[in-house]
C-alpha cells in the first residue's frame, strides 16, 4: 500500500482467549487460527472479495465439468524443520489427517473421490460431482498443510509435535509461556523473497478486556484483533493518537448473529408470533448503542459479504406497531418466553436485556436465562430454550456456512451448529441441495436468491446483525489486514514504519 516496506521490528498482538493448542489441524477455534495463520499455510489465499490467489500453489485449474481441480505447487518450499514440502504432504493433510480430525473438512471431503499426486509438485483432486464452494476451502484454518513426515502413522492428537507446531509459514514457533504469551520468530528460509518483514511476533494473553485496552494504551501491544476490547471501549481507543481501525478482514467468516427460535415450542411455531418478534427488535439501536455503529443490520440468512447475497429480501425492519398487530392476530397467549443470552461478555448481556425490553414492549413476557459457555452449549444442543442468541461464520459460501442452519437433514438435536431451530421445509432442503452442486456461479446466484426470499418470509430465526469486529492497530503498522481473513491470515505482509 503506502510506501516501501521496511524490514525489522517486533509485533505485539493481543490474543483472546488463550488458545487450547496451536496445531490448527486439531483445534480450530479463533485464537488457534490466529496464531496458526502465521505458522501454517494452505494452497490459496483470498482477498476481501473472496477472489483466490496463489500461496503454496503457484497456479491451479478447474476442469470444465467442475469435477477436477489441478494445483501446481511452488518449488523450493520447506517446512520449518528443513524438510521439503511436496504433493505428498498435501495428500496426507487433506486425505488422511484432516479427514480424521477436522469436522468441517470431513464434510467437504465427502465430495472428493480421490487425490492424485502425479509428481512432487502437482496435486489433482477428483470430485464425485461438481461442488461450487470447493475452490473456497484452501485457507489455513480449513486446509492447513501438515508435515507428513512428522505425523504419518502416529496418534495425531497425542503427537508431541503438537506443542511445537511446524508448518511452512512465514513465522516459526519459538516459545509458549502458558498464561502469558506466545512467541513466534521470523522464518529465515521463507520462500518469498524479503518476507516476512518483522522479526518476531508476540501474542499476549490478557484475559480481561479492560486490561487489554490498558495494554494498548500503555503501548505494550500494538494490534487489537476484533473482539479483544469491549465494544464500549472502542470509540475511546479509536480516538487515540496514531490509531487506525478497520472492520475489514472478516469477509470470509461473515459473522452473522441471530436468535434461534425453538420451533418445537408453542406458540413459537406460529409464523405470526415470529414475525411479530422480528418486527419488535430495534436492531438499529443495538447496532448504535452496543456495536458503536459497526456492522450492518441483517436482512436475512446471508451476510452481505458472503457470495450470492441478495439485498432484496422481504422487509423485516423495526416496526413495533406492526409487531403488536401481528402479535394480536397470533396464537400468543402471554406465555413466558425464555431467552438464552450468549455468555461472551458485556455486549451480549446488554443485548439480551435490550431484546427482552423490545419484546416486553410489544406485550410479550420474557425471562432471561443466564449460563456460562458450557451451559450455553448444552442448552442449545438440548434445545432447552425458547429464544437463544448465537452468531455463526459463513465461510464465504452459503453451501459451506448457511445451509447447515436451515436444512432438515441437519435438524437433529445434539449440536449447537445444526439446524437448532428445527426448521423443517422440504422445499428449502431441495433448493439448498441443488444449489450446492451447480457448476455455474450464475445459476447458483439465482438459486440462492430464491432460497433467501423463501426463508425470510418464514422467519425461522430472528436475524440480528452482521457483526463488525474492528481490528485496532497503530497506524505505523502497515498491512495488518489485507485478505478476507484479516489477522487470521498471518503477518506475512506486515511491516512497521519506523518513526521519522
Amino acid at each position: 500500500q503506502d510506501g516501501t516496506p521496511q524490514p525489522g521490528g517486533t509485533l505485539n498482538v493481543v490474543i483472546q482467549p488463550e488458545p487450547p493448542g496451536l496445531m490448527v489441524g486439531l483445534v480450530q477455534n479463533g485464537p488457534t487460527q490466529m496464531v496458526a495463520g502465521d505458522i501454517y499455510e494452505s494452497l490459496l489465499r483470498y482477498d476481501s472479495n473472496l477472489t483466490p490467489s496463489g500461496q503454496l500453489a503457484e497456479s491451479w485449474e478447474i476442469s470444465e465439468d467442475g469435477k477436477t481441480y489441478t494445483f501446481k505447487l511452488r518449488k523450493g518450499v520447506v517446512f520449518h524443520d528443513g524438510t521439503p514440502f511436496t504433493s505428498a504432504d498435501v495428500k496426507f493433510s487433506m486425505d488422511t489427517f484432516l479427514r480424521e480430525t477436522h469436522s468441517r473438512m470431513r464434510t467437504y471431503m465427502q465430495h472428493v473421490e480421490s487425490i492424485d499426486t502425479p509428481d512432487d509438485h502437482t496435486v489433482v483432486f477428483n470430485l464425485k460431482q461438481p461442488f461450487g464452494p470447493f475452490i473456497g476451502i484452501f485457507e489455513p484454518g480449513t486446509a492447513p498443510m501438515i508435515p507428513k513426515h512428522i505425523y504419518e502413522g502416529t496418534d495425531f492428537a497425542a503427537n508431541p509435535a503438537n506443542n511445537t507446531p511446524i508448518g511452512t509459514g512465514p513465522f516459526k514457533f519459538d516459545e509458549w509461556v502458558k498464561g502469558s504469551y506466545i512467541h513466534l520468530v521470523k522464518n529465515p528460509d521463507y520462500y518469498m523473497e524479503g518476507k516476512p518483514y518483522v522479526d518476531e511476533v508476540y501474542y499476549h494473553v490478557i484475559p480481561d478486556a479492560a486490561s487489554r485496552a490498558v495494554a494498548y494504551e500503555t503501548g505494550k501491544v500494538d494490534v487489537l484483533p476484533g473482539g479483544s476490547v469491549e465494544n464500549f471501549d472502542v470509540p475511546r481507543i479509536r480516538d487515540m493518537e496514531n490509531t487506525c481501525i478497520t472492520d475489514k478482514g472478516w469477509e470470509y467468516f461473515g459473522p452473522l448473529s441471530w436468535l434461534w427460535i425453538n420451533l418445537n415450542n408453542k406458540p413459537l411455531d406460529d409464523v405470526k408470533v415470529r414475525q411479530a418478534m422480528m418486527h419488535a427488535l430495534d436492531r438499529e439501536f443495538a447496532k448504535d448503542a452496543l456495536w458503536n455503529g459497526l456492522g450492518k443490520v441483517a436482512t436475512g440468512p446471508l451476510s452481505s459479504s458472503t457470495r450470492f447475497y441478495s439485498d432484496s429480501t422481504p422487509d423485516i425492519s423495526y416496526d413495533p406497531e406492526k409487531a403488536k398487530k401481528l402479535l394480536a392476530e397470533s396464537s400468543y397467549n402471554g406465555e413466558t418466553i425464555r431467552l438464552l443470552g450468549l455468555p461472551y461478555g458485556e455486549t451480549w448481556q446488554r443485548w439480551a436485556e435490550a431484546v427482552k425490553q423490545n419484546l416486553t414492549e410489544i406485550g410479550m413476557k420474557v425471562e432471561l436465562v443466564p449460563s456460562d459457555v458450557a451451559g450455553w452449549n448444552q442448552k442449545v444442543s438440548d434445545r432447552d430454550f425458547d429464544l437463544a442468541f448465537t452468531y455463526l461464520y459463513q465461510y464465504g459460501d452459503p453451501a459451506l456456512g448457511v445451509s447447515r442452519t436451515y436444512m432438515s437433514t441437519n435438524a437433529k438435536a445434539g449440536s449447537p451448529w445444526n439446524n437448532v431451530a428445527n426448521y423443517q421445509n422440504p422445499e428449502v432442503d431441495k433448493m439448498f441441495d441443488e444449489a450446492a452442486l451447480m457448476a455455474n456461479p450464475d445459476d447458483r446466484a439465482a438459486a440462492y436468491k430464491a432460497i433467501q426470499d423463501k426463508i425470510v418470509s418464514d422467519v425461522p430465526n430472528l436475524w440480528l446483525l452482521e457483526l463488525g469486529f474492528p481490528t485496532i492497530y497503530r497506524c505505523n503498522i502497515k498491512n495488518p489486514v489485507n485478505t478476507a481473513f484479516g489477522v487470521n491470515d498471518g503477518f506475512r505482509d506486515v511491516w512497521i514504519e519506523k518513526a521519522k
Partner: protein
Amino acid sequence: MKEFWTRFRYNRGAVIGLVILAVVIATAIAAPFLFPTSPWKMVQRPFLPPLTQDGLPLGTDALGRDVLAGLAHGAYVSLLVGLVSTVVALAIGVPVGALAGYFVGRVDDALMRFTEFFQTIPSFALAIVLLAIFQPSLIFVIIAIAIVSWPPVARLVRGEVLSLRTREFVEAATLQGLGNTQIILRQILPNALPPIIVLASLMVAQAILLESSLSFLGLGDPNIMSWGYMIGAARTVIRTAWWLSFLPGMAILLTVLALNLIGEGLNDALNPRLTRKSE
C-alpha cells in the same frame, strides 16, 4: 431491652448507621411506588451523565436506562442478598463452630472435616459451579453465597469456643447444672461475640459484592435489578462513564458503613466493660 437501647443510643455512630440503614430499607420498600416504570426500560439516550437532564438526576446507563430507578429497585435485592445470605451463613456456621469447639474430640473432628469439605473448593469456584448446576434465580444466588460463606464463620467460632470453653466461669456454669446448650448459648457465645459481629458485618458487604461478581460473569439472576448487577454491568465502561459503577458502589459502601457502625454499636452495647462511662 430498654436499657440495651439506651446504651446503644449512646454510641452516636451506631445511631447514624441505623438511620442510613433505615433509609436504605425504606427506599427498597418504596421503590415500586417511587419509580413505577420498570428499571429496565430504556428511557433516554445511553450514557447520559448525572445532572444533565431533568427527571434523570443520575443519568442513564449503557442502554439508556434510568440509573436512579435502578438504584432504588436494586436496594431491595442487594439488601436481601446481603442480609439473608449472611444470616443463613451465620445460622449454619455459628452452631457448627460452637458445637465443634465445645465438644472437641470426635464431634469436633466430624464437624470440622465436614466444614473442610466445603472449604476445600475455592469459594468463588464453588459458587460458579453451583450456579452452573442450578438455574441462577435469586434464591439460588443467595443459597450459593451462603454455602460458600459459612465455613469461615464456623472456623472462627470454633477457634473462639475452643479457647473459651476452658475458662473457669464455664466450669462454674457446668456445676450450676446448666445444660450444654445453655452453656454454649449463654456463657460462651456472648463472649465470642465481638469477632462474630465484625465478621458478619464484613460478610454482608462480601455477599453484595459476590453477587456482583457473579452477575458480572453472567451467573446472577439477570431478571432482577441489583446494585451488584449495576456495578458489574458498568465495569466495562468504567473509563468512559465512571459514575455508572461509582453510584452503586457508593450505595454499597454506605450500606456496609451503616451495618458496620451498627455492628460496632452492638458490640459496645453488649460489652459490659464499655458501658456506663462516667461523663
